[in-house]
């Protein structure tokens, strides 16, 4: 027996292993080439429909497709997190380790973002050329995508922990991400949405973010108050979701 051994020194950083876990998740995801390629299938279908049926809305649809593609990252985070936890139980390896729960959550999210960013970059580039994007509009788009990612990955991670089997997750996942991503004015302009509900729908990160980019590009002309409303709502949603996810990640790292 070795009762006189000193414990090894350990890192006290809250982000120990973050980079390594991003790399792990990226490597895992890159094996799912078909999944990455088909991640923009809904967007591609919408683009074809709009190009054929109502070409004048194509710019809106293209920008909406970029935002929606980023929003969908949350669905990937949700499914991956649930899969690792329920089927593989690998979360136990990472939680009982120097890696903090928030590094685990963020590492998984960023790894998935990196794996799925190619379709987003393609759509972004297409928008920059076809819309075409001005520099301020491109900067707004990048900022919106950043906030969108933080929001959706955080929400996806939290939702993933509420279920005990994968079959229960899938329908809720489809409902949540399509309801907030497809139904509101993301692929179509805000002015086609019922007028009385327009300020309210700007509170949604997807619709609000898309409207901000379209406003910056000059595709929409929104009252200043609405622009502020959409921007504040998006930033607050992202911050609240992130703080909530970090809190929740810590809490559920030890089950009750």
């Amino acid at each position: 027996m070795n009762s006189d051994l000193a414990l090894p020194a350990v890192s006290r950083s809250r982000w120990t292993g973050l980079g390594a876990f991003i790399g792990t998740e990226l490597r895992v995801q890159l094996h799912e080439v078909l999944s990455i390629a088909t991640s923009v299938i809904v967007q591609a279908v919408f683009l074809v429909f709009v190009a054929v049926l109502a070409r004048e809305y194509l710019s809106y649809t293209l920008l909406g497709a970029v935002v929606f593609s980023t929003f969908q990252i949350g669905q990937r985070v949700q499914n991956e997190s649930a899969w690792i936890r329920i089927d593989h139980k690998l979360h136990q390896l990472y939680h009982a380790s120097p890696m903090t729960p928030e590094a685990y959550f963020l590492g998984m999210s960023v790894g998935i973002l990196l794996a799925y960013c190619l379709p987003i970059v393609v759509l972004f580039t297409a928008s920059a050329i076809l819309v075409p994007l001005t520099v301020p509009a491109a900067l707004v788009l990048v900022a919106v995508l950043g906030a969108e990612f933080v929001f959706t990955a955080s929400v996806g991670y939290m939702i993933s922990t509420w279920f005990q089997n994968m079959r229960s997750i899938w329908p809720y996942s489809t409902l949540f991400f399509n309801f907030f991503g497809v139904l509101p004015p993301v692929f179509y302009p805000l002015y086609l949405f019922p007028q009385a509900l327009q300020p309210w729908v700007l509170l949604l990160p997807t619709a609000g973010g898309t409207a901000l980019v379209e406003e910056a590009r000059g595709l929409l002309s929104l009252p200043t108050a609405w622009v502020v409303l959409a921007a504040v709502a998006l930033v607050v949603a992202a911050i609240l979701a992130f703080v909530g996810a970090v809190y929740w990640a810590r809490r559920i790292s030890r089950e009750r």
Partner: protein
Amino acid sequence: MNSDALRADSVRKIYRGRNGPDIEALSGVSLRISRGERISLLGRNGAGKTTFLRIASTLLAPTSGSVEIFGRDAIADPESVRPYLAVVPQEGKPFMHLTPREQAYSYLRARGFSKETAQSRADHALEQMGLTEVADRLSITLSGGQRQRTMVATVIATEAPLLFLDEPTIGMDPFARRGVWESFKELTTKGSTILLTTHYLDEAEALSQRLYIVDQGRLLAEGTADQLKHRVGGTLRVSVVSGDGISQQLATFGPIVRDGDTVHVITGPGDLKEILALAAHSNLTTTVGPVTLEEAFLRVVGRSIHDEF
């Protein structure tokens, strides 16, 4: 310095039933494990082994009780002890799209090891687990036993001060299990402490310096395998198939334990001839062997380790 790697006092766990009654999985478990020990929790499925292991490894909150790891309060401040732990979860699986080498290496990197250390430790652990030949094949192409060995290799490569292993050899062939046992012994000689759960009696006996018998959320016995066998009250086990009809006579030779329709008598060499004659008189099949941990378990728990709840 505190010599306890793990100290648990009166740990209780009640799972609140959402659509049914509450379930008390642990009813006041207390145990101490010194640094460098290899300890087994031995029990049937559903005995409470995994619940205890998960509480001790900070992955599950107890309903009440205390757990200290290396003198630190693991209930109040789990993050302070987690850097010293590593866990093989029950029925865990590696990432299917990583190779065993990538799995072990990337996990070590996530724990903060340098590239060189991660590489050498991963290689060594894979070799110990007999995975060198398949180290660069995707886990999705491996057998269940090879995946389980990948999980064990990943965790033992950490050489963490306290390792929790929940049924670590499940699904492995006997040869692979022995390889795992050797690696556990090597780890404890390096200073790690190991707590594992198992329902393999041979594993518990071969591997544990001490073992705890767990049943229905309680620790029923503790000691070395020899101490537990000694408690049984004899050195020989005489098993009489369908021996219920003569169980009263058998009980005069020593303690008896029922296992299905077989009656085991724990006795010494002096009574053997008489027992065999008694069984032969009733035309009953009889086998004789040394007392094993199985009898100790039967004696302590009152049921075979293979019985389901």
